[in-house]
């Protein structure tokens, strides 16, 4: 290689490496802050040097304080309760959406019926409605339906979305019609065709969809913070946002909670990152 080219390549990698360090530094800092004793929080930038590494400087005190429990009007609420709430809401929403969005998407891709065109246009238009416009009226509706402060009220409006339905419609278009017809000739019910013929074929798409939906629900703040009131019902983003005000002088505690809150999405992402990134960009790049 020519020296000029070598220099250029070196420069390119240094820029990329610098950007990566800038991205990773806050993560490293978060991990260090969560495990440092509160007396040593500001002593070292990241972790203490090996010579000063001991249970006095680095320990689990922050996590102990976090899991000690909050006393509320309805008794003590422990941190694992918020974790459970978040896990429950994110998992339920994801699975329910997977079923209903794929069903609706399959119907739009493989059936000809009266009113389909109008329905498709309505669906595409409805994706352009900004969610914020609907917050106030949906809240009013929730009050009327007595769904405020319930998990049902949070899950119900998102059991099927236009976005998910559209994604599955696109994926189902690729399923060959002959297969579906063969299923019908063999006497399969429509439900059976959808579950055992179509669903397995759109599996890659389903993986990406589940990841995106799980992440969005896990990190959701606006909905849970408006609709949930009882402390034992709160999710991780809502309670950790409150902890900033509670633990003003020991931020190690809410940083420990934040660290725990980003672990599940990280595990999911590293396990499924190929599907995730390709699922994310497929709509934009092909379209």
């Amino acid at each position: 290689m020519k020296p000029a080219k070598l220099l250029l390549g070196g420069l390119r990698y240094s820029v990329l490496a610098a950007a990566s360090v800038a991205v990773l530094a806050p993560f490293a800092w978060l991990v260090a802050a969560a495990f440092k004793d509160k007396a040593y929080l500001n002593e070292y930038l990241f972790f203490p040097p090996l010579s000063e590494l001991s249970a006095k400087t680095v320990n689990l005190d922050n996590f102990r304080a976090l899991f000690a429990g909050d006393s509320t009007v309805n008794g003590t609420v422990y941190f694992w309760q918020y974790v459970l709430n978040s896990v429950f809401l994110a998992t339920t929403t994801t699975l329910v959406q997977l079923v209903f969005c794929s069903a609706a998407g399959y119907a739009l891709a493989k059936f000809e019926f009266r009113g389909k065109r109008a329905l498709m246009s309505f669906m595409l238009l409805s994706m352009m409605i900004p969610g914020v416009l609907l917050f106030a009226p949906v809240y009013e509706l929730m009050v009327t339906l007595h769904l405020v402060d319930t998990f049902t009220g949070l899950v119900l409006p998102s059991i099927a979305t236009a976005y998910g339905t559209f994604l599955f419609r696109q994926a189902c278009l690729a399923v060959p019609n002959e297969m579906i017809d063969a299923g019908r000739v063999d006497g399969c019910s429509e439900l059976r065709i959808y579950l055992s013929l179509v669903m397995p074929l759109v599996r890659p798409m389903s993986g990406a969809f589940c990841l995106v939906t799980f992440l969005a629900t896990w990190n959701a703040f606006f909905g849970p913070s408006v609709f949930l009131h009882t402390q034992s019902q709160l999710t991780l983003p809502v309670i950790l946002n409150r902890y900033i005000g509670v633990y003003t002088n020991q931020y190690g505690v809410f940083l420990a909670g934040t660290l725990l809150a980003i672990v599940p999405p990280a595990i999911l992402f590293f396990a499924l990152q190929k599907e995730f990134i390709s699922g994310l960009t497929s709509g934009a790049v092909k379209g």
Partner: protein
Amino acid sequence: MNTPKQYYRGAAPWLLLAPYLVVTLVFTLYPLLSAAVLAFYQTNGPASRAFVGLDNFGFLLSDPVFYRALRNTSIFALCSVFVQLPLSMGLAMLLNSGSSGWKGVFRLILFSPNLVGQIFVGILFSVLFTPRYGLINRFLHALTGWGLEQQWLGDPALVMPAIVLTALWVYVGFNMIFFLAALQGVDKSLEEAARIDGANRLQVFWNVTLPSMRHVVVFVVITSVIGSFQLFELPLALLPTSNGRGPDNSGLTVIGYLYDAAFNVGDLGLGSAVGWVVAFVILLASALQLRLTGATEET
């Protein structure tokens, strides 16, 4: 229409669609209509309401705090398009020309902040901006000798820069993924032909590469502007002592204003009015951008 369509006889498609249809009717269409009505009422919580005509919009137009929120949000949107996206594009190009081994690693690292919800990012950065001890203050001080004691989140002039900087950490990698995917689809032979014809790197990028990934660029710009106008959670967690407003409302966003009006004050009518203003801005931005790309398509 030359052949009559064969309609499926049976309830199967409607049964498959039923959950989506019911939920859309109840939680999208009905609220949309009710938002149109609600904007003309003043409410005190969901229970009591009084018709006020256009007063909600009149109030917004005369409220300096709302203008402040609009200005902050617009600044954020401009920074997203003109600072964040060029950085994303630059990194995507560096990654695209590299050998494949390290590419996946860099891509993974640069994308990773997107796993972290906006609230968690806000919580983390509210501590990183701590004077004297925060990572950002220390880093800036080590690099430039300035800024160790800087109160980023307490200084009205520095609140927006702090929000923009935090957003860069998250979204540069996100948009980079889209640009990278688009760059991989650009026809290499076109670029080579231009190089042979004597075009320099910048000319090739501007006249060949960028036009051939136009659709993705437009998509990313639109989603960035729309996302910017929905900014809310990041400043809320970043500025906890002032409920996301910052000193002198220097960090207040339009959605922050909506949240306060609708859910803290309890005026869902005013909240709906703000919602319509945001919806209008978003539709305008989308229409403008679609028009712009339509124009480039003809040349």
